[in-house]
């Protein structure tokens, strides 16, 4: 493929075979033999630190012990009862800062038990064989509206369905799953997110209505009137802007849009990517966008972050992974100008940065430019205030997200919220699931009291 000096954006940079290889399962499943060897490394700690470190509190030592006795059903029940998205969490959780980071084997050996791989081993069969582990409770006649079919919304819906309530989930996009479906690198979850959601819904009692967007064709005040309770799991639908001129140049995109498009493209050889890609940001979205660009065949991918590696919200493991995959990571540089030729991006000018004595980030006054055919912005997502807040009723906010109490109740009676749209601890699938689960508990308690 001949190199162009401007707008060198093309599909099919790699063969279909190479693309298949690049986008196959980045962490293939363990077979029984390997799973047993790994499971036997678990000390079966008492009051285990890994469980404490898991936002959903999975009893990890117990499920691993079940693996060692070939009791996979027991293992899967332990996992999925605590975390209905235990399948995808086994693939996408940054376990190095969660369960595996807390594993006592980090001490003497610096090699934690591979909990995520074991969790996947313990749960894969459930989805493969479509085994229903949970029963829907006796119908209560109570109806709950859930807004957003992401991890928080669906976890909440599933927990409520188990209690026998009827749940209607309103989802803006065509598919359910939220970020699991649209926002995670394809090689982490090949073909899995949809299957997991199908399995989750098979409990019954959950109806999903797509194309329903709060603030557009859905009103919160109406939902409150029609349902016994409302749960908002709307995520962060808006994207931070760089605040520079030229963000609408051809070739400048939001990383989340690129990832979503990639996830929804069946034939990756039809998906265009720039020859030279610059990704701006330091989180998991930035990493996923950069690595996927490389795997699509970009010649050079440079990820630029304004601070040092320790400040990146992507974990050390994710950063190392990106570098292994051939992404060039540049620290301490902030974008100053988007360069173009007649409205088509040609590069980005950066200023070197440093921390001053007070720890404040300052520009050094030194500049450099990177040529780029594609610029991906990944500097964070924010709550879409128009959609979530000004949808008929006024929800109180806290630091730009929906304010909730410890039971995930919002400022509006009968309305709960969870997941990324409330924030709090970490913006991770596993935290969203826990929020949804806890909110469901609170909703169940509240509506059970109603006549």
């Amino acid at each position: 493929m001949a190199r162009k000096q401007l707008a060198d954006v093309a599909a099919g940079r790699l063969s279909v075979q190479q693309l298949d290889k690049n986008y196959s399962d980045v962490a293939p499943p363990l077979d029984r033999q390997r799973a047993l060897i790994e499971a036997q490394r678990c000390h079966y700690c008492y009051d285990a630190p890994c469980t404490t470190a898991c936002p959903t509190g999975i009893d990890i030592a117990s499920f691993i012990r079940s693996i060692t006795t070939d009791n996979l059903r027991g293992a899967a029940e332990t996992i999925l009862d605590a975390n209905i998205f235990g399948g995808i969490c086994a693939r996408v959780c940054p376990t190095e800062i969660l369960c595996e980071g807390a594993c006592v084997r980090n001490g003497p050996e610096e090699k934690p038990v591979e909990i995520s791989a074991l969790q996947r081993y313990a749960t894969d069969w459930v989805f493969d064989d479509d085994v229903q582990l949970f029963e829907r409770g006796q119908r209560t006649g109570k109806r709950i509206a859930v807004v957003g079919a992401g991890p928080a919304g669906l976890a909440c819906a599933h927990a409520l369905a188990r209690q026998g309530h009827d749940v209607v989930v309103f989802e803006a996009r065509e598919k359910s799953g939220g970020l699991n479906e649209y926002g995670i690198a394809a090689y982490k979850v090949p073909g899995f997110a949809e299957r997991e959601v199908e399995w989750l819904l098979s409990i019954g009692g959950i109806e999903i209505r797509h194309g329903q967007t709060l603030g557009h064709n859905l009103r919160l005040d109406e939902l409150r009137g029609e349902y016994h309770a409302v749960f908002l799991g709307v995520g962060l639908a808006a994207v931070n802007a760089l605040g520079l001129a030229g963000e609408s140049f051809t070739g400048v995109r939001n990383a989340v849009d690129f990832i979503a498009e990639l996830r929804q493209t069946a034939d990756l050889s039809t998906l265009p990517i720039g020859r030279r890609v610059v990704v701006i940001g330091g989180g998991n979205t930035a990493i996923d966008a950069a690595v996927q660009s490389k795997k699509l065949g970009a010649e050079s991918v440079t990820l630029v972050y304004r601070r040092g590696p320790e400040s990146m919200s992507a974990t050390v493991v994710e950063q190392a992974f990106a570098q292994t995959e051939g992404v060039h990571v540049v620290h301490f540089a902030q974008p100053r100008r988007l360069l173009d030729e007649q409205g088509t991006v040609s590069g980005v000018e950066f200023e070197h940065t440093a921390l001053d004595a007070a720890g404040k980030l300052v520009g050094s006054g030194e500049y450099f430019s990177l040529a780029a055919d594609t610029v991906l912005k990944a500097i964070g997502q924010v709550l879409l205030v128009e959609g979530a807040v000004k949808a008929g009723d006024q929800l109180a906010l806290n630091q730009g997200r929906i304010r909730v109490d410890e039971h995930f109740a919002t400022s509006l009676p009968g309305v709960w919220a969870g997941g990324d749209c409330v924030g709090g601890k970490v913006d991770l699938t596993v935290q969203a699931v826990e929020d949804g689960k806890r909110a469901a508990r609170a909703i169940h308690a509240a509506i059970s009291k109603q006549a």
Partner: protein
Amino acid sequence: MADLSCNFVGIKSPNPFWLASAPPTDKYYNVVRAFEAGWGGVVWKTLGLDPHVVNVSSRYGAVQWNGQRIAGLNNIELITDRPLAVNLAEIRQVKREWPDRAMIVSLMVPCDEESWKYILPMVEDTGADAVELNFGCPHGMSERGMGSAVGQVPEYVEMVARWVKQHSRLPCIVKLTPNISDIRSSARGAFRGGADAVSLINTINSITSVDLDLMAPTPTVDGKGTHGGYCGPAVKPIALSMVSEIARDKETPGIPISGIGGIGTWRDAAEFMALGAGSVQVCTAAMHYGFRIVEDMISGLSSWMDQKGYARLDDFVGKAVPNVTDWKFLNLKYDIKALINQDLCIKCGLCHIACEDTAHQAITASKNGQRYFEVIDDECVGCNLCMHVCPVDQCITMTRVDDGEFGDWTTHPNNPMRAVV
């Protein structure tokens, strides 16, 4: 360099490591490979009278434990299934080619004098160094009045040992079955019958596991199973105890012992020898890993002896026997406490939960709201449980805290039978 050469009731071998009578010593090919690998001797797989026995397919069952593939091994194989003449010819050939190695021939024939009188001269004629009487196998042959069916009756043991000594000049080792309430009774029988030595333990009667799909014991032979002989690492503690019982039995003073039961390393061997075994026999470990394991057994034992200043085997054989005693003679004033090394502690909590649930509630789980495991000395009885469950080597150690006084049960005020001073 320590001298590992072994002279066991006149049977000489370059080292004390013999292969026990079992499949690894079934024929010329295996035994030569064993000698090439460095084994000091073999006890040839048990010979019987023609017509030779037949064996089943599916012969071994194994206990796997926490990743260890053969923590214990069970077999339902019988004695040699080759004609007597073939075995005798091969024994003769091996002995001629490997004169410095010990060649002991295991025998099992019906419990009548004629049978023994018939087979012994043929064995002697091969040039073998000794015979070992298989009074141990708990399966198959015992149904025909041989093996453990003999070993379980001390009078039979005595009788057969006497016949063997009458009809052969070869040293006679009697292999004992552990499937008996007091191993000393059969050793005493052998001793009375004039046997030169005993070897123990033979395998323990066992069912390895039950196949829950077939609803049959394993190893399964066409849907059925039978009890077999259990051996391997799991049986070592039982064997050590039985060896020590005989070593300190005043009714069989000084009877030489060849130790058998779960030996796979030089350390296992040294332990048996410290309890009085003059030689040791190995089977399961060789079947698990091949004959090459003897290399480390030789170098490991030699290094350890050098380190301890033992020039030859006799310098430490039996050295632990005087320290094997009855419970009533243990010092009740000895007092140890567990000590947890906080620098090594990985905070797994296993010591706490073991002590809390099943012992003496002597280990904390937290301090100032943090995970913290510490021994409460007043509650600790020094049982060692925490030390054993701790996954970190040397993290929990036991420290002596008493003032060195002595007082045992024989004089304890709570003992109604105490000696009156």
